[in-house]
């Protein structure tokens, strides 16, 4: 079956600026787990300062896609280029250096539960050798917590926080090493609508503040509407449709339409 919204050529996209440099390219990747062919020849591009949302059903391989991008999983075929570097062939050292420029928000938050919020935030900072002295570290931690509006939780353990708070702390940990690209895996799933909208605003705020590019995975339509410059619909392991939120909303294709009901 053919999509009614043909994937627009990247160069023709109106947003954000047509000439913005490409920071992330996924070219025809495939990934299978045994007989489970999750991704089949999937491609996308992300430009500087742009927010792209990948939309798809549960189990369609969205998490697998961004784990391939960050190098946690290896695609069976295809190439992924992040900030000009091919992820699959990088050495450990080069991959670590690249990862310092890419933020990753896990679907499960993945906060270190034996560490306090402060230690959680310090971990990536120290690992990437970014802060020179104690004072600077503290300042960066407080700054990151301020960004997500939770400075009072600094000495608490993740287990003492609510789901929404945990999500925000995870976001703070992602942002503490200022990223050029941020990968969000379902930032609003499981949150109440009010908190979810706050996270959406935060994503927009971060995009403006750091001029970062974001790849957001979501099936929360309000999140898609509020955060996306461009939307890609992942279905059957392929990029099924692509366009702005408004374009996809206007689509009559039943599969696309099903998401916007």
């Amino acid at each position, binding site marked *: 079956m053919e999509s009614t919204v043909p994937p627009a050529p990247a160069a023709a996209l109106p947003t954000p600026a047509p000439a913005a440099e490409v920071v992330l390219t996924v070219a025809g990747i495939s990934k299978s787990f045994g007989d489970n062919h999750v991704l089949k020849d999937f491609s996308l591009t992300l430009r500087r300062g742009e927010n792209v949302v990948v939309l798809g059903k549960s189990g369609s391989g969205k998490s697998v896609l961004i*784990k391939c991008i*960050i190098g*946690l999983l290896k695609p069976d075929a295809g190439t992924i280029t992040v900030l000009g570097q091919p992820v699959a062939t990088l050495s*450990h050292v080069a991959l*670590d*250096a690249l*990862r*310092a420029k*890419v933020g*990753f928000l*896990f679907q*499960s938050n*993945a*906060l*270190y*539960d*034996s560490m306090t919020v402060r230690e959680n935030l310090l*971990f*990536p900072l120290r*690992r*990437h050798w970014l802060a020179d002295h104690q004072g600077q570290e503290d300042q960066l931690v407080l700054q990151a917590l301020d960004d997500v509006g939770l400075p009072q939780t600094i000495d608490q353990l993740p287990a003492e926080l609510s789901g929404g708070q945990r999500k925000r702390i995870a976001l703070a940990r992602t942002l503490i090493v200022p990223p050029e690209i941020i990968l969000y895996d379902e930032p609003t799933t499981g949150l109440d609508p009010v908190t979810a909208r706050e996270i959406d605003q935060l994503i927009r705020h971060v995009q403006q503040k750091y001029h970062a590019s974001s790849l957001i995975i979501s099936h929360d339509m309000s999140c898609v509407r509020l955060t996306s410059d461009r939307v890609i619909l992942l279905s059957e392991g392929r990029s099924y449709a692509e366009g702005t939120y408004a374009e996809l909303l206007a689509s009559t294709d039943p599969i696309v339409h099903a998401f916007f009901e």
Partner: protein
Amino acid sequence: MPPVLPTPPCCPLISPATPMPASTFFTEFRAMTGFTGRFFREGFRPRYEWLELLNQCYAIGYQSLPLVGITSFIMGLVLTLRLRPTMVQFGATSWIPVMVGLTIIQELGPIITGLMVAGKVGSSIGAELGSMRVSEQIDAMEVSGTNPFKYLVVTRILAATLMVPILTLLADAVGLGACYLGINLQGVTSVALFTNNILGRLTFGEVLPAVVKTFFFGFAIGLIGCYKGYHASKGTQGVGVAANSAVVLSSLMIFLLDLVAVGVSTAFGLI
């Protein structure tokens, strides 16, 4: 005779519901050998996680101290009190210190320490790494520019390898102290006589294997706990399985290593 079940037509010989134990064993064995190889490949190359190694030494050593202390105290005391009537019968009470001393230093100290640490530390390493694997914390570390194998696994294995021998020495000391106490409950011996009695008859060849094998005990506990946790399957059940099998396997391994140690010492004429 039980009724013969019809075999499903698609797979007449091997049913997936009953995996062959031998093949599972060899798969597991191979995976574990690979894991050990990775430890030696990655463990001795920078960057070194000194701080985390210290943390783990503290966690493993200091926290097992009360448990190891209490159990070896009780063993030393019980052994002395049990042995005494027999020795009195043979008129060999002066042999009690050296008999108990040898038993504790060569076997009971290492074994009890090993088992206690396997129970306390092996399970907690298995559960901790297991839950970190399940909740993607290990992936999060990798994304944060950290090699989780070095940070989590290498440090824990090294810490266990270093701490079990130290704990064993302490356990030996506590056990001998308890032996001294046991003797003094029913008679009097001076500390000097007691220590002379033991130290005078212990040879280097008797003590060395006992010390050396404890490094292997520690290594096995750390390795098995880390392996089980690091490869825990998804879900909370995976964490429980990891912790449980870490204890069972490392306890078993301690006895196997002890057997090997006896064999090796005999071969070298140390016994």
